C-alpha cells in the first residue's frame, strides 16, 4: 500500500500548482459546507425573499462546486503520471508495478468521487430526501463519471481531434450523470453499477494483460498495414493550417453533437433542487454549452508550440505570425462555435426558453469561445501561476455568468454588464497575448514529442 499511497500523494501534490488547487478545493468545500449548514436557506434565485443578495447566494451555492472542481482537477496529474509510468519500462521492472499503478488510479478516482458525493449531498440537507440515499446515488454515479473524466483528461492531453471528441462526450457524461441520478430518485442504480464494474474490469484486464496482448496487436497491426497499406493523411488546406492542426475543423464541430445528444437524454425531465417540475430550467444547458464553447476555443493552447516550425520556415515577424495564427484559429473555431449556437437555439426552442435567456445565452457562448481562444494564445511557455489563476478565474466567471443569464430574476443590465465585462476581458487577453507573442522565446516553447507527432 506504500506505493499506492505515495502515487496518490504525487497525483494530488506533484506540482505546486496542483497542491495549491487541491488545498483550495478542500478549503472551498469546508467553507461551502459550513455556509450550507449554518446559514439560512438560499431562496433568492427563485424570487423569494432572502437575507442575501442574488450575488451572495450564487457565490455560496457555487463555493462547494468550485471546491469539487478544484479537487477533481487537483488530481489531474494522475493521467499524466499513470500514462508515463504505464507506457515505460517501469511498469514492467517495478515489483508489482502494474497492479499498484492501477490500484492507485482506482483509489484516486474513489477518493475524488467520495469527496464530490459527500459535498453534493450537502445540497439536500434541507430537503426531505434522505442524505444516505443521496450519497449512495451520487457516489455510484460519480465513480463512473470521474473514471470517464480522467480518461478524458488523458485523451485531451494527447491533443488529437478524436481525443477531444471523446473527451467532450465523457466530460458531458461526467458532469451530467450524477445530477441526473441524484435528482431522479426513481432511476435505478443497477445500470451505473454494471457500467462502472464493466469499465474497471475492462481497464484492469487490458492493463494487466497488456504485455501479453501487445505482441499480438502489433502483429495484427502489421499484417493489416501490409494488406491495406499504411494510413495516409487525407486532409487538405493551407500549410499553416496543416501545421497548426486547424485544417479540418468539421470533426470537432460535428462531433459536439454527440455529447449534446447524450446531455439531452440525461437532462430529460431533470429539475434542479428547489425548482418546480414545470419550471423552464435553462441552467444546466447554458452551463454545459458554456463549457463546450471553452473546450473548442482552448485548442489554441498548443498554438505557440506548433507555430515554432512555422516561424522557422516562413519569413514572418513574431507579430505577423501572431496575426496569422489568430486568423487560422478563428477560422477553425467558427465551425464548432456555429454548431454550438445552432444547437443552443434548437435546445432553447424545444425547452421554450425565454427569448431574453436564449439571446444572452448565445452571446455568452460566443464570449466563452473568445475568452478561451485568447487564453490559449497566452500560453507561450509552461503554464505558470498567472495563467493558471487566470484560467480558473475565467472558468468561474463564465460559470457564474451562465447561472445569472439563466435566472429569470436577474436584471437585464446585470447580464449586459457581465457579458460586457467578459468581452472586455477577452479583448484584454488578446492584447496580452499579442504582446507575449511579440517577445516569444522559442527556447521556452519547444513542442514535446507528442505535439511534434501531432503537428
Amino acid at each position, binding site marked *: 500500500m506504500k506505493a499506492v499511497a*505515495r502515487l496518490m500523494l504525487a497525483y494530488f501534490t506533484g506540482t505546486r500548482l496542483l497542491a495549491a488547487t487541491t488545498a483550495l478545493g478542500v478549503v472551498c468545500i469546508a467553507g461551502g459546507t459550513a455556509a450550507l449548514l449554518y446559514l439560512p436557506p438560499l431562496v433568492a434565485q427563485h424570487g423569494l425573499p432572502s437575507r442575501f443578495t442574488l450575488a451572495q447566494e450564487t457565490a455560496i451555492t457555487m463555493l462547494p462546486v468550485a471546491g469539487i472542481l478544484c479537487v477533481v482537477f487537483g488530481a489531474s496529474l494522475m493521467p499524466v503520471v499513470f500514462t*508515463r509510468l504505464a507506457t515505460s519500462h517501469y511498469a514492467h521492472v517495478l515489483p508489482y508495478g502494474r497492479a499498484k499503478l492501477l490500484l492507485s488510479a482506482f483509489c484516486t478516482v474513489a477518493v475524488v468521487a467520495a469527496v464530490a458525493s459527500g459535498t453534493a449531498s450537502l445540497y439536500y440537507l434541507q430537503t426531505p430526501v434522505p442524505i444516505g440515499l443521496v450519497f449512495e446515488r451520487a457516489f455510484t454515479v460519480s465513480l463512473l463519471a470521474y473514471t470517464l473524466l480522467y480518461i478524458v483528461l488523458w485523451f485531451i492531453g494527447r491533443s488529437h481531434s478524436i481525443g477531444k471528441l471523446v473527451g467532450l462526450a465523457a466530460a458531458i457524461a461526467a458532469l451530467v450523470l450524477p445530477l441526473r441520478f441524484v435528482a431522479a430518485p426513481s432511476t435505478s442504480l443497477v445500470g451505473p453499477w454494471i457500467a462502472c464494474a464493466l469499465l474497471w474490469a475492462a481497464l484492469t484486464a487490458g492493463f494487466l494483460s497488456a504485455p501479453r496482448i501487445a505482441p499480438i496487436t502489433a502483429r495484427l497491426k502489421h499484417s493489416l498495414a501490409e494488406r491495406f497499406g499504411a494510413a495516409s493523411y487525407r486532409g487538405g488546406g493551407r500549410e499553416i493550417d496543416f501545421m497548426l492542426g486547424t485544417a479540418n475543423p468539421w470533426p470537432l464541430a460535428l462531433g459536439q453533437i454527440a455529447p449534446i445528444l447524450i446531455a439531452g437524454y440525461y437532462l430529460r425531465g431533470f429539475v434542479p433542487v428547489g425548482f418546480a417540475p414545470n419550471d423552464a430550467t435553462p441552467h444546466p444547458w447554458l452551463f454545459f454549452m458554456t463549457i463546450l464553447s471553452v473546450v473548442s476555443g482552448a485548442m489554441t493552447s498548443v498554438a505557440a508550440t506548433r507555430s515554432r516550425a512555422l516561424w522557422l520556415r516562413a519569413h514572418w515577424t513574431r507579430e505577423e505570425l501572431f496575426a496569422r495564427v489568430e486568423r487560422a484559429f478563428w477560422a477553425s473555431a467558427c465551425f464548432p462555435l456555429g454548431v454550438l449556437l445552432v444547437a443552443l437555439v434548437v435546445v432553447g426552442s424545444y425547452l421554450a426558453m425565454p427569448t431574453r435567456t436564449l439571446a444572452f445565452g448565445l452571446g455568452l457562448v460566443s464570449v466563452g469561445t473568445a475568452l478561451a481562444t485568447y487564453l490559449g494564445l497566452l500560453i507561450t511557455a509552461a503554464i505558470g501561476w498567472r495563467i493558471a489563476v487566470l484560467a480558473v478565474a475565467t472558468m468561474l466567471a463564465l460559470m457564474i455568468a451562465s447561472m445569472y443569464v439563466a435566472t429569470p430574476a436577474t436584471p437585464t443590465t446585470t447580464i449586459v454588464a457581465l457579458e460586457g465585462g467578459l468581452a472586455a476581458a477577452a479583448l484584454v487577453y488578446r492584447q496580452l497575448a499579442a504582446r507575449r507573442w511579440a517577445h516569444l522565446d522559442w527556447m521556452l516553447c519547444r513542442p514535446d514529442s507528442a505535439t511534434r507527432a501531432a503537428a
Partner: protein
Amino acid sequence: MSVPYVAAHRLGKAFYGKTVLEDVSFSVEPGDIVGVLGKNGAGKTTLLELVLGFSPPTAGRVEVFGHPSFRLPGAAKARLGFVPQQDELVNSLTAADQIGVIASFYPRWDDELINGLSRAWEVDPSERIKGMSVGQRQKLSILLALGHRPDLLILDEPVASLDPVARRQFLEQIIDVAADGRRAVVFSSHIVSDVERLANKIWIVKDHRLYWQGDFDSLKDSIVRLHIRAARALPDALAVPNALSVQRNGSTATVVVRDWSDALRGDVAERLGAEVEVEPLTLEDIFLELHR
C-alpha cells in the same frame, strides 16, 4: 551449485519475420560485470530487453533468478535494477518526488546511498525534472536504478549523455556495486574505453548473434594483429588461419586473426618463411576489426 542470475539458452527474437537475435546462449553469475558491444541495430537493446522480460522470446528461453524472464514475480523484480537508453522520468515531478514514487515500490531503499550520490553527482532533489539537462536526467535515472541496491543491474547505454567527470564517477559507482561479489552488472555502451575499463566479461553482438563472449583477457589473447615480414614477396594467398582482415604490401603484410594462440606462430612463420610479430589489440581495435 548456485543458480546463475541470468541463464539464456538458444534465445531468439524476430519482429514481423525479421530476425533480430538468433541462437544466443549465455549466463550471468554473481560478481560479473558484463559489457555488451555491438553496432547500431546489432540487437543489444533487444538482448537486454529479453533478459528483462519486456517481450517474450520467439525461440529458446531466458531465466532471471531462476524464473522465466517474461513471467518474473514481484520478489525477483525487487532484485533487479534497470536504466533505459532514454530516460522515462515524469517531467512534471521534482527529482525528490520521482525518487519517492519509485522508492515506494521497493521493500528496502537506501536513502543514504541516494542522498550521497545526489550530492556527488550534483542532482538537486528539489529541481523539477522538465528543467533538467539531458545529463542530469540520465544521472537521476541511474540513481533510481541503484537505490534498492539490486542484485542484478542492467543498463542500456547508461553513459551516453554524461560528461567525462560524471562518467568516471558513474563507473566508480558501478565498480562499488559489483565489488561485494554478490551483485552483477550488464551494460551496453558505445564507449569502448569504458567497457574496457569496467567489464570483466565482454559480449560482442554481431549479425544478430553473440559473436564473442568471455573475459576480456581471453578476447585480447584471441584476436591479435600479426605483422609479417619476409625476405621476398609474400604469396597471393597468405593462408593464415581464421584471418579477419589482410593488408599486403609486397614482402610485408598485416593480418588480424581470431582464435590465435602462440602455438600457431611458429607454424605461420615457417609456412611463409617470414618473421611474425604479434601485436595485442585494444578493445576498440578489436571491435573495429570485427566490424570492418
